[in-house]
């Protein structure tokens, strides 16, 4: 799955920083039909976790009420330099992940 992550290039310790992730996924509701009249089965990213140097800082449990190609923005306090690791899974069990480096001064 193609994903885009955005975190500030640099941060000072204690700063509240915005963390953004966008993922290409149809978030298929299970209520749509294809042109032949066949029901398209539900398939959404149902769980997304973000870990900061291994510690979970954010979790989202989502349903078909979240728009296609989901985009999330949340916040975290800049602590040590390190890595933000995102992991997510959809109803079919297909997993995705993305990493972003964080440089924290002070």
């Amino acid at each position: 799955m193609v994903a885009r992550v955005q975190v500030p290039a640099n941060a000072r310790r204690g700063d509240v920083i915005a963390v953004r992730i966008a993922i290409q996924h149809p978030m298929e509701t299970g209520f749509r039909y294809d042109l032949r009249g066949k029901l398209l089965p539900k398939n959404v990213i149902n769980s997304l976790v973000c870990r900061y140097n291994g510690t979970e800082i954010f979790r989202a449990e989502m349903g078909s009420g979240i728009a296609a190609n989901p985009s999330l923005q949340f916040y975290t306090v800049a602590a040590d330099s390190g890595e933000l690791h995102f992991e997510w899974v959809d109803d079919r069990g297909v997993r995705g992940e993305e990493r972003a480096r964080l440089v924290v001064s002070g």
Partner: protein
Amino acid sequence: MISRRTFLQWMAGLCALDAGSARAQAVASNDLRPLIAELTSGAAVTVGRIRVETPRLADNGHSVPMKLVVDSPMTATDYVSSITLLSPRNPRPLMAKFMLGPRAGRAEILTRVRLNGTQAVLAIAHLSDGTFWSGSAEVEVTESACLDAV
């Protein structure tokens, strides 16, 4: 052989039915109370502290920007542990649940949601002190002018 009177009564009945269902469309179709009770384990929910910000008029119900903001200091002892998003009108009333915590720094989430028609979306915040707070926003959902061929 139906009498003219009976026929007219039937027609009046049909019209009343139509008006009734049209009115019902503008009103919520999901009873959120059992879902909320399950979420809070029966605890009371107070209106306040959480704001739901969305456009008043949505271009398209498929993708409506939404911002959830909770008034909380987000310290180690006073923080938001979760925010749940509920819809009175979508086929699945539970839209999403976001888990935060003291490391969040700010209790604010931005995302885009799907709305199955005009409705007031409801958000419930669960705080570290065990209390529940709610906020909502009404969104008008319009449709595209030309039908699409996919």
